[in-house]
């Protein structure tokens, strides 16, 4: 799609549309779609549960029968790098050794492809995955509503899971009292990272309050150093900061209600939260190119020492290890300011794996997930820079100190704030667009949020 050549580009728009149509047709559930089948589950109420599947049923195969007949389970996820992908291959080998007769097929796609169209295509295909990676919140809820999430409440009560995962790790993974996801990895989505050498050179200290933060920006600017760099071309980096500012200003419930469309997005409280973004823009805290720069380029610039700080998530550690291993990094959470939100809240997101409700091997899929959260696998994931959601993921692991403390920050946070795009993708797009307009100095908070609210009102009601 990105590599259209001249002749392709010069095709008529009719052909372009038809190409899109072909994509739609490929995604069409007609015929092969589980949801198109009269016998297929149509909602959470009709999902086969793991407990129920212990006995032979229409939707599952009894373990004993499955053991006699060789079969394959498919595991799908978006790639987060060769190292992590390799651990899944190790898991496959271990699983196949532990369960003779069972084969694991790993389906790994490019991360963005998986998130946008890949997973949907896989789920509606004839060879749908039995287990798939997903984000909790709206995306998970949609999958469950569409009939692609198995109720694994009974399965996760098993010691294989209960001894490895804190109940709090299931936040966003329980819908109507039923568990649909096994937690895998977590990330702090936004903190402000700083270059320790630069801070030391100028005798700067990490700020704790908003006023100190603005003063630090001014000092950095006066020293000729870009205070904060961010690459907001895709809108989520500043959108994440806006999410956190909104929670701190108006509280988690009000923030989430606004993103879910239960409250207006242009409330005075939200305008006040966006006022903080405007303050950053007006005080020259951000790089001028904030809305033109991709996030990875911003990361590189920061690691090259071209700014004092960057607002980004815990995954910066892995970039630092590969791009600037000698750079000393520190971080601080969103500085505090008066508001009704929790001053120690942390913006973070967890991810996990879902068992496809249409899988013929639900129990085998659960067995795979049990190995995914087992100590051996957790250790391997932690070694590769992930933050597994399991208990004590870093025990006996030589992990980056920042990764370890960030994991603690997330696990001990009094309030975990969910980024807007994990709450409602469409409304988050408008929310993030408004944040981009404010940070770019293109609109005032009121103008940006009024425009966002107007577009939200045009969206179809859920």
């Amino acid at each position: 799609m990105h590599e259209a050549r001249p002749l392709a580009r010069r095709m008529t728009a009719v052909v372009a549309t038809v190409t899109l149509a072909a994509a739609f047709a490929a995604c069409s559930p007609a015929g092969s779609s589980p949801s198109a089948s009269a016998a297929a589950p149509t909602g959470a109420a009709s999902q086969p549960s793991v407990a129920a599947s212990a006995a032979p049923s229409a939707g599952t195969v009894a373990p004993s029968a499955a053991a006699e007949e060789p079969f394959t389970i498919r595991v799908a996820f978006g790639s987060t790098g060769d190292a992590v992908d390799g651990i899944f291959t190790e898991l496959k080998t271990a699983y196949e050794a532990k369960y003779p007769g069972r084969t694991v097929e790993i389906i790994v796609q490019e991360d963005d492809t998986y998130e946008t169209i890949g997973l949907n295509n896989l789920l509606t295909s004839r060879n749908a995955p039995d287990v798939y990676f997903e984000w909790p919140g709206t995306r998970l809820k949609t999958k469950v509503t569409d009939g692609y999430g198995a109720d694994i409440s009974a399965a996760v009560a098993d010691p294989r899971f209960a001894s490895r995962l804190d109940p709090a790790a299931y936040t966003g993974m329980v819908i109507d009292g039923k568990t649909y996801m096994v937690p895998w990895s977590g990330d702090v989505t936004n903190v402000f990272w700083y270059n320790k050498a630069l801070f030391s050179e100028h005798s700067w200290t990490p700020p704790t309050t908003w006023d100190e933060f603005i003063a630090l920006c001014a000092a950095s600017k006066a020293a000729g150093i870009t205070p904060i760099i961010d690459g907001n071309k895709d809108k989520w980096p500043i959108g994440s900061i806006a999410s956190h500012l909104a929670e701190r200003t108006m509280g988690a419930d009000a923030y989430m209600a606004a993103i879910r469309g239960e409250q207006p997005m242009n409330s005075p409280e939200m305008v006040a939260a966006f006022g903080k973004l405007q303050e950053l823009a007006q005080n020259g805290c951000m790089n001028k190119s904030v809305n033109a720069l991709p996030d990875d380029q911003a990361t590189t610039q920061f690691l090259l020492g071209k700014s004092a700080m960057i607002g980004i998530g815990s995954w910066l550690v892995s970039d630092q290890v590969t791009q600037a291993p000698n750079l000393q990094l520190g971080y601080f959470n969103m500085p505090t300011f008066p508001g009704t939100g929790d001053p120690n809240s942390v913006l973070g997101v967890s991810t996990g794996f879902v068992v496809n409700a249409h899988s013929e091997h639900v129990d085998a899929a659960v067995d795979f997930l049990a190995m995914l959260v087992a100590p051996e696998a957790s250790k391997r994931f932690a070694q590769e820079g992930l933050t597994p959601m399991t208990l004590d993921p870093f025990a006996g692991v030589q992990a980056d100190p920042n990764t370890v403390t960030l994991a603690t920050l997330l696990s001990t946070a009094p309030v975990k704030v969910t980024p807007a795009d994990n709450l409602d993708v469409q409304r988050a797009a408008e929310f993030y667009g408004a944040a981009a307009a404010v940070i770019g100095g293109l609109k005032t908070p009121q103008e940006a949020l009024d425009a966002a609210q107007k577009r939200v009102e045009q969206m179809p009601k859920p």
Partner: protein
Amino acid sequence: MLVGPAVAFFTFVVGLPLLGTIGLSFASWTGTNRPKLVGLDNFVRAFGDEVYRGAYLNTFIYIAATLVLEVAVGFALAGLVSVKGKRTGWYRITFFIPVMLPMVVIAVLWSFLYSDDGGLINSFLGAIGREDLQHVWLGDPSTALLAVCVVSGWVYAGFYMAIFYAGLQRVPQHLLEAARLDGASEWDLFFRIKVPLLRGLTEVAVLLCVTGAFSTFDLFYVMTNGGPDHATEIITTYVVSTVFRDHEVGYGAAMSIIMTLVVVGIGLAYARLRRGGGVDLEY
């Protein structure tokens, strides 16, 4: 009988998907749920969607810019490289090289050129003492669209140069010689003989440029992703984000159908203009 395979193939790869898209445009579908009929809701929403309307405006600005930067410049380049000289072959190759590069590579390359920090353009402006002209070219709504248009022109001017150059080679020499004998200058030859004789080719080039502009995507997606604040949002980037980011397949299908109708309408109007425009100059 002989056209049977072609008709079957066309039906399979064009007709059926198009029908599927038309069907989906009347439905609400996330890609995984059961499509739900919503009547004309998607179309009504599209007509009231400011971003979608803005995407048309941006697309038409892009078309206008590319007609100049691609077709007109391509024509001018063809005229220049047609002049007999020692290095014109090299010039032809040089101008055509961007056409052969992958668009993503070009987009990334130009993103660096436009960078406000160390980018070649801002560095050059700084070097000549014109810091006042330095800009965040892709981050400012007032310059972002034009900046992308310039890149498009840089790439495809060479493509149209190749088309026009081929046409210029077919201009009968006896016409040119007769004109020279009558005292015509090289400018006269170009504007009074060559340009009129290339009218048919120009019309094809304009059609390619207009329809190509409607279907362009990669350059915008990589360079700006529709931003800042939808300043470079074109129809295709908006449809793609609607379908693949928001998973509103039905709405995306409706917007695609509207775009198809617009393009078909432009094509029909263009054909009608051609019919009413008199007889093509043949040579």
